[in-house]
């Protein structure tokens, strides 16, 4: 069946077609009954909404074709992400079209399974129970748990809770940064998480804050970090990162300082002490660090005294600097102490108000602290809760430590109601499932920080039979209260009406404009704070378990956050940039530990804590601190992934399963770094699917770097234009534009957003673990990590690699049928129709960026509905590769033609470029001397990968600018 026809055929408006997504192609064309002026078959419509894959609340715009959303992009108008989107945001589409998505309400079939029910019947069960409780005066036995909802839905739920006399709503976010709030309470008397202005800092000193991965708002901070850090006009900021593990964020640092886990606070105080001693900080901080001994701090943390002094010097001289703290090793029982130390450091360097700005406070400040979640769990365990309502996106049975025994507590609740729309570990414990609509199908709003209110609007009709949680709860609430619609404390007929009611004062009459922009964005006046210097204190973190064991670092994953994004196969297949592993979890151990245990990569290791044992394959890392073992969080498979992409393996991949429920007493936050684990070799193997054969470039200069000084000098002097290489042949003439691209290796942070964006845009199939491990992944773009220097302390260079669109392309002349050829606009064309599949081009490509369809890859329904109708879905036996988003080029030219003008620089953006938070990728016309891409091509930092092969690529890379010891 031809996929494109499918889209041509079902050009129907309304719910009928959009819900199914599994209609069979027929040779009939169904016209609209009533024309929908917003949707023209064959023309994309865009709807702005807010990404709800994590609490960062980035604005997205959804591209709707023929009634289906086919692609998400960052909303360029949104102040948080300004057009960029992370990989999890892109992958939200796979949640929307998830093959396992729950269709219609489910109720227990009396045993372990579910049976479907009507909405009326399912709602009645819940309403009856709640009504009975309320009538019995036991309203407190009703508990509502949702993810962070600080907008209308939160407001409505709070009214609902009030109306029914239920327990106060609990917002559950596993990563809640309570310690930052607590420290700010202590030092600044303000219970908030401020806005960190990376863009204004000269030096960023991060104590474990993985802001490129998950910390607070990764797209926003990666974006502003790039503005501060990447080399522009001879200037570049400095980034120093302190962490026991070389995370993605750490490998972007100019200087990565490896410390013993949990000694960040100590280091911060030692730095402050040095600053005070050397007169770089105000005397009043002297008292706070009076008890700090730099030598002792150096010994405990494993960081040399010289390094501490150096860090202090660099940080103190920054105008301004910025110190941030977070991440797993700053989440021990001493987390608040560490954050206090960091606050003191910021205050001492005069950064508060400059780069640490209160006022535009983060939404995270409104999350219910973990301690209250724990007390709810206690109440459930004691049988005090009889109805538990779980919103979508919360999966406490997976994301909370097993030490809390939450699952057992939930089992004691008489009626558990889940609003999940894809089954997860917690919905499996529910008695009634009332699937909520996906956020792409919903009305709502979300405020990621003060002053910014993003609006959610349905971007398509629901894919499966599901209803907004607000609607369902309004109905249940009214039924329980016994009132009619329009009356009582919750009178609104639908959640949509409630939302629009709350928006009315915000939008001031221009609802349409606000919806088009994606919300209402206002600047918030900075709030002045007064500093209270409290005594610096840095106790070691208390760790549970065998003291001789290794410290368990259960760290949030860039790809899955807390696990809620793991429903997406795209994310499982997008490699973890540091390990380049796909489709499995692993335990990262240091080379020393591996030697002691006698294991190599892929050997199974049992990780035992006081709470239990986890069996995972080992990933041996030379750079990890020897006293630590690290496991990424969030790895889980949904049923269809298990059968299709990975060999069925029921064992857990989740480090939370062996984590004790320990809190940081000062903040009530969960201590993620709270366990010592002992490792034993199991003797079996489960090789990891690692895509990159080696991180050693073998002197091939694929990813190049230049020292900061040299880069400055070159930038000043410019680069002499190179004479064109001599040739016997006629140079190719380009009658129209010649497309080209530059990629700034210095700006690239390795976040993989481009990889997933490309996958979404270009209908790239998912291949599964076995194929990926065997070099058969199909990504058109890959993100390589090349390590230089000492293996235990490498400098990492990230190199996005895609088809280089060579002018003298080795792939083209070898194709017997002209399937590969050079287009008039300077691209390497690949004509799928013509391809016979000799794979000669794939061999002859020195970059190995050509991908072959080894099998007929399927898009299990309804994921096939997501396919971009402008891009061919390739048949088995066909070679494919990056087209530089040809369909976008065609669309851009078409748009310009409609407006009777030439294509302007910036009109056309490739999918990878569009989503890049750091704007490392620039695309444009190389024939236009004024275009951004031409200017960058002539940059002194410009080079081509494998230049000596003589392929003359259209993609130019810009060398990474290295500072620090490796420069």
């Amino acid at each position, binding site marked *: 069946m*031809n996929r*494109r*026809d499918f889209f*041509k*055929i079902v*050009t*129907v408006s309304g719910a009928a077609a959009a819900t199914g997504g599994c209609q069979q192609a*027929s*040779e*009939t*064309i*169904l*016209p*609209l*009954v*009533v*024309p929908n002026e917003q949707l*023209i*078959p*064959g*023309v994309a419509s865009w709807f702005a909404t807010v990404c709800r894959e994590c609490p960062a609340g980035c604005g997205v715009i959804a591209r709707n074709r023929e009634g289906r959303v086919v692609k998400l992009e960052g909303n360029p108008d949104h102040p948080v992400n300004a057009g960029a989107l992370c990989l999890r945001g892109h992958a939200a589409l796979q949640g929307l079209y998830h093959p396992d998505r729950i269709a219609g309400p489910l109720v227990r079939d009396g045993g372990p399974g579910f049976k479907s029910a009507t909405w009326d019947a399912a709602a009645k069960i819940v309403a009856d129970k709640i009504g009975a409780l309320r009538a019995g005066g036991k309203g407190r036995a009703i508990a509502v748990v949702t993810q962070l909802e600080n907008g209308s839905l939160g407001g409505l739920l709070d009214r609902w809770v009030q109306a029914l006399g239920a327990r106060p709503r609990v917002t559950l976010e596993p990563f809640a940064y309570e310690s930052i709030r607590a420290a700010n309470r202590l030092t600044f008397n303000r219970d908030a998480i401020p806005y960190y202005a990376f863009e204004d800092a000269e030096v960023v000193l991060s104590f474990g804050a993985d802001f490129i991965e998950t910390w607070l708002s990764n797209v926003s901070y990666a974006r502003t970090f790039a503005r501060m850090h990447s080399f522009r006009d001879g200037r570049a900021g400095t980034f120093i990162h302190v962490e026991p593990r070389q995370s993605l964020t750490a490998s972007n640092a100019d200087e990565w300082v490896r410390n013993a886990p949990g000694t960040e606070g100590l280091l911060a105080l030692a730095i402050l002490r040095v600053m005070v001693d050397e007169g770089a900080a105000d005397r009043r901080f002297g008292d706070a660090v009076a008890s700090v001994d730099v030598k002792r701090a150096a010994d405990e943390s494993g960081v040399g005294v010289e390094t501490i002094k150096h860090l202090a010097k660099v940080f103190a001289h920054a105008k301004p600097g910025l110190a941030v703290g977070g991440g797993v090793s700053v989440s021990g029982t001493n987390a608040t102490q560490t954050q206090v130390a960091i606050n003191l450091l910021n205050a001492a360097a005069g950064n508060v108000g400059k780069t640490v700005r209160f006022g535009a406070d983060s939404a995270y400040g409104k999350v219910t602290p973990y301690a209250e979640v724990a007390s709810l769990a206690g109440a459930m365990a004691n049988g005090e809760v009889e109805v538990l309502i779980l919103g979508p996106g919360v999966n406490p049975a997976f994301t909370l430590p097993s030490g809390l025994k939450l699952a057992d507590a939930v089992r004691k609740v008489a009626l558990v109601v889940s609003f999940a729309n894809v089954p997860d570990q917690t919905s499996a414990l529910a008695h009634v499932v009332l699937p909520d609509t996906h956020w792409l199908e919903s009305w709502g709003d979300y405020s990621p920080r003060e002053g910014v209110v993003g609006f959610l609007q349905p971007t398509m009709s629901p894919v499966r039979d599901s209803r907004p949680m607000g609607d369902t709860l309004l109905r249940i609430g009214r039924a329980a209260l016994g009132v009619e619609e329009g009356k009582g404390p919750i009178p609104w007929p639908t959640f949509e009406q409630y939302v629009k009611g709350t928006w009315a004062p915000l939008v001031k009459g221009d609802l349409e404009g606000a919806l088009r922009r994606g919300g209402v964005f206002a600047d918030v006046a900075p709030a002045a704070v007064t500093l209270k210097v409290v005594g610096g204190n840095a106790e070691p973190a208390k760790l549970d378990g065998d003291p001789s064991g290794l410290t368990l670092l259960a760290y949030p994953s860039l790809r899955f956050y807390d696990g809620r994004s793991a429903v997406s196969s795209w994310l499982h297949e997008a490699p973890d940039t540091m390990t380049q592993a796909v489709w499995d979890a692993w335990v990262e151990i240091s080379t020393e530990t591996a030697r002691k245990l006698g294991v190599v990569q892929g050997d199974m290791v049992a990780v035992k804590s006081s709470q239990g044992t986890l069996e995972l394959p080992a990933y041996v890392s030379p750079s990890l601190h020897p006293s630590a073992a690290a496991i990424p969080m969030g790895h889980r498979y949904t049923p269809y992934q298990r059968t299709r992409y990975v060999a069925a393996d029921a064992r857990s991949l989740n480090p939370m399963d062996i984590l004790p429920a320990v809190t940081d007493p000062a903040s009530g936050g969960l201590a993620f770094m709270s366990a010592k684990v002992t490792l034993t070799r199991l003797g079996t193997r489960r090789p990891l699917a690692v895509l990159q054969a080696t991180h050693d470039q073998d002197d091939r200069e694929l990813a190049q770097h230049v020292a900061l000084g040299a880069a400055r000098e070159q930038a000043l002097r410019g680069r002499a234009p190179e004479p064109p290489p001599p040739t016997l042949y006629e140079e190719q003439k380009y009658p129209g534009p010649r497309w080209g691209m530059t990629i700034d290796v210095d700006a690239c942070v390795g976040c993989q957003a481009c990889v997933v964006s490309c996958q979404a845009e270009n209908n790239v199939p998912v291949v599964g673990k076995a194929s990926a491990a065997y070099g058969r992944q199909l990504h058109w773009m890959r993100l390589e990590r090349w390590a230089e220097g000492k293996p235990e302390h490498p400098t990492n260079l990230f190199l996005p690699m895609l088809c280089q669109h060579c002018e003298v392309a080795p792939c083209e002349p070898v194709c017997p049928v*002209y399937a590969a*050829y050079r*287009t*008039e*606009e300077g*691209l390497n*064309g*690949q*004509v*799928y*129709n*013509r391809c016979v599949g000799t794979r000669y081009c794939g061999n002859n490509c020195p970059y190995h960026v050509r991908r072959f369809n080894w099998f007929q890859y399927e898009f299990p329904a309804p994921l096939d509905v997501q396919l971009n109708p*402008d*891009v*061919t879905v390739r048949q088995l036996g066909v070679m494919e590769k990056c*087209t530089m988003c*040809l*369909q976008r080029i*065609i669309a851009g030219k*078409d748009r310009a*033609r*409609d407006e009777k003008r030439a294509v302007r620089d910036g009109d056309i953006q490739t999918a990878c470029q569009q989503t890049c938070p750091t704007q490392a990728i620039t695309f444009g016309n190389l024939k236009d001397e004024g275009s951004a891409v031409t200017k960058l091509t002539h940059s002194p930092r410009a080079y081509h990968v494998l230049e000596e092969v003589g392929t003359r690529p259209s993609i130019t890379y810009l060398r990474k600018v290295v500072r620090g010891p490796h420069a």
Partner: protein
Amino acid sequence: MMAKAGVGALGAALLAVLVFLAISSWSRQPAAAAKPSAQPINFPHNVHVGTYKIDCQYCHSDARRSEYAGLPSVERCMGCHKIVAADKPEVKKLADYHAKKEPIPWVRVNKLPEFTYFPHKAHIRAGLKCQGCHGPVETMTTFAARTGTSLRVDLLNLVGFSPAPPPLTMGWCIECHREQNATAGRRAPLDCVTCHH
């Protein structure tokens, strides 16, 4: 006797090669075009286009702004047919669909070969007449088209004739593009990826 068996085995094996190659190759050739068949409503193009001179784009209104020409919504048909010829049996069928709020299941007539993109919009913008590709629609009762590659043309080609390429095949598109570039001074693209991407 035994020799015969040997010869038979050899022959069978070779035959198996040929049969296998033939079947597997044939089954994956590009699909031939759909045959026009009966439409749910016997829609006379000649009356609408020929007699009443209704512009093609009045009904196929997406042609100028989309890749697809589109079909008129039932609402649009009813715009006229609430009054005009409302008593005719075929128009009553239309009214039925409208009353039931159901789309009319039109049968596809024009079908491009697989994996090919054809934007109507660009061709309308270039000022082409619909009839240039779709034939004399104003004389057709029910729309019919013979499209797609044909074995006959392939065979004729093989033996050295070069018959005119059948409608909606690549050669047919190319022929027109080349002709337009040569005679009308246009810049109709001939780059493969214009249509195949």
